[in-house]
């Protein structure tokens, strides 16, 4: 699954740690999701959408 996490984070000038703090996960989690090594669960994907105030489908897309 592809995602725009890195771009959206850069637009807000957030570090991986900033985003991790907002999502209440580890920085490794954010890094793994950004690099496509880990696909988040649906609840975490919704939390990501809430943090960026965007619909899930604008953040994640199918391969």
């Amino acid at each position, binding site marked *: 699954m592809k995602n725009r996490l890195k771009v959206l984070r850069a637009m807000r000038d957030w570090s991986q740690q900033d985003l991790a703090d907002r999502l209440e996960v*580890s920085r490794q*989690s954010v890094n*793994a999701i950004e690099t496509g090594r880990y696909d*988040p669960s649906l609840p975490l994907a919704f939390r990501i959408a809430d943090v960026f105030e965007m619909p899930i489908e604008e953040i994640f897309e199918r391969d």
Partner: protein
Amino acid sequence: MTATEKPGFTRTVPFWAGLTFGTFGAVMGLALTDAINATTTMIMMIVPAALFFQTMRAAGRRAACSGRGEAQRLYVKRVAIFASLYLVVIALQVSLLDDGEASLAVRAGLSIMPGLAICGVFWAIGRLIVEEKDEFIRTLIIRQTLIATGFALASATIWGFLEAGEVVPHIPAYWFAVAFFLGQFFGAISNRITHGSWGAL
């Protein structure tokens, strides 16, 4: 380092781990060569046990600095307790069973304790999986544990058949717990390669 911490207690994890294993080896060496008796061994085992606690405290501090959660701090604490218990009971077992005069009940009691202490570490891993709130870290721990379990079971099975065929010598079954911990190391490497992170164990 906080202002209240003593500089001497802020050394790295490898430093404390090296001291722990060094002193443990020295005490066991003295016990096995009958240079010291059982009581002295027990008293001297306090040193590696205390050093092991310090190792785990250093690991806990590093975990806290790297932003790890409460579940991992609890895990470190539990492993420290069971590993210290293991060091003490293994010394007790070696010292008291050495003369071969202990009764069956004493031998059974002393022999089951190191195994139970190691089971405590397995329990701590299980609790970490249950309590870890970060789903990615939890995935890594489960992955690492599955690899370790597979490695230990595969080792036991293959060794068992080789032993039956008289190709290899007999080894005590507790070595497969050692294979499990070696498997955790392989699991961590696998996590690093596939997910870019070592994991939490």
